[in-house]
């Protein structure tokens, strides 16, 4: 079976997010980049499915030229092919993104074969829009299950499970289908040095994204780092000597003893 996983390049922010002076984006001058964690799991799932059932795993991103780095990570995780829809660095909204990916599917299927499954992250780490997978599915007329933490495919049917409080919802859906996954569905593999070297030599197919945004607008005005209380903690002590002071705090201030 052929599986497509769609991923997004995002800044690898640490303990503090610094914004650019115009408050339009995260200052990435001192940051590396990564892909959203849910989507890393989407790649892992695609690769495992292709390994188990035969076929191929394809990774796609809509992003700047530099997002090739995330595609190479996917290839090093043993994806077979990679496609970059080069967006030029501007942030694309969820509708334009879904439409851009939908617009290119036919073309990719002509070249690489039809996809049985299209995997997305449930939401991207930075935007958290929770709608690209659904909108793409609807454009393509495919069924869509979201927020999945377990996926089994057998005989053209996917059994997908979604966590709810106290259990799991189970969906059974005929392929081809769109599934959006959450971290925890699997443990993404670490790519070996050798795999990374090999990935560097693999070809990345490139396409110009189209993608209409549709009627109505969603327009970012600015970003803001929320106020945090950065007053330093009360130091209760160092090492084992602090144990009585901790118990004292638990008893008299937190009042749980």
């Amino acid at each position, binding site marked *: 079976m052929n599986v497509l996983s769609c991923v997004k390049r995002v800044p690898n922010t*640490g303990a503090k997010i610094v914004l650019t002076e115009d408050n339009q984006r995260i200052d990435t001058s001192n940051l590396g980049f990564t892909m959203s964690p849910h989507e890393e799991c989407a790649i892992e799932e695609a690769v495992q499915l292709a390994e188990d059932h035969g076929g191929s795993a394809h990774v796609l991103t809509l992003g700047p030229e530099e997002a090739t780095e995330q595609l190479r990570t996917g290839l090093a995780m043993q994806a077979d092919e990679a496609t970059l829809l080069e967006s030029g660095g501007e942030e694309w909204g969820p509708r334009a993104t879904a439409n851009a990916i939908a617009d290119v599917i036919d073309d990719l299927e002509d070249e690489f074969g039809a996809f049985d499954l299209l995997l997305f992250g449930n939401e991207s780490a930075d935007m958290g829009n929770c709608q690209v997978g659904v909108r793409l599915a609807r454009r393509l007329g495919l069924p869509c299950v979201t927020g999945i933490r377990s996926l089994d495919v057998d005989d053209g049917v996917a059994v997908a499970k979604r966590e709810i409080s106290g259990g799991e919802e189970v*969906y059974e859906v005929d392929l081809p289908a769109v599934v959006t996954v959450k971290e925890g569905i699997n443990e993404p593999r670490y790519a070996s040095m050798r795999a990374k070297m090999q990935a560097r030599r693999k070809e990345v197919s490139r396409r110009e994204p189209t993608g209409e945004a549709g009627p109505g607008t969603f327009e970012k005005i600015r970003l803001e780092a929320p106020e945090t209380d950065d007053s330093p903690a009360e130091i209760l002590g160092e090492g084992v000597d602090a144990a009585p002071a*901790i118990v004292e705090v638990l008893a008299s201030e937190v009042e749980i003893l």
Partner: protein
Amino acid sequence: MILSFVEHESGVPDELSLESLTMAREIATGTGEPLEAAVLGAEGGALADELGPYGVEEVHHVVHDRLDGEGYAPQAWGESIAQLAADLDAGTVTGPSTDRGHEVLAHAGATLDAPMATNCTAVDVDNGAYELERNRWGGSLIEHARLEGEPTLVTAAEHEYPVEEADAAVEPAVSEFSPSLPDTAFAVQLDRVETSDEEGIALGEARVVVGGGRGVGNPDDYDQLETLADLLDGTVGASRAAVNEGWRPHDDQIGQTGAKISPDIYIACGISGAIQHMVGCKGAENILAINTDPEAAIIQKADYAVIGDLHDVVPALNEELEERS
């Protein structure tokens, strides 16, 4: 008109849906439009009495032979909401930021080809245009944005709006709406629910959470943290680094892509305090950090801190607690 999608369990409205009704009512008050609700599923009609206190003037119960009897079907629900919104000429459709809320509204948005803003924390309407604030990066950044459309779709971020009754309760009118749904809208349908037999206190509900990060160093040393959690009637959580190492299952992960916790105290052991971790525990009343590094970011964010090796501090603390009991 503002149409609010309300989730419920056998006629009892879901808490996040009630939160989103607070947002919806603020929008309705701002624009002077009425607030109405869309409910689906069996027993949805029973919701009218429940929603009056929140200022809902009319409850639209969506009825369809395949919607009432059979399991939840995301696309069918979304298309129903879209048809109802079009029928009522709703300016805005709101909903909760649950998995279901997001997917139903996303389907409605796709049907209507309308823009949707998720995880909103503040919404202001000026002349039909929305100025809103929404969570990005799981809440470590706020985005100010403008949303315009006919209609627009908006979900309320989790626990950002209090559940609040309206100044004056109304007695909502109840009406039935019958959508026309093609078979394809039922291609995905809830097949069954499997209940888990896991014991112990769920992370989201625990009053005490003991978190272990990369500093724990190996899976076995979580035993010390388990003992501490037991002594305090709490439960153990973990950072993503610890989960990635395979020391703990993903169910234990706290943070942007893990559980959100709100205990009386969070005891973070060997955790650096990365922003994606902290968005998961910002609901904690108190944070106590145990860390070897006095410069670790978590020391800035915690209320109390102990500088030291958790492998020494936690057993000493356990001993102290055992002596006390």
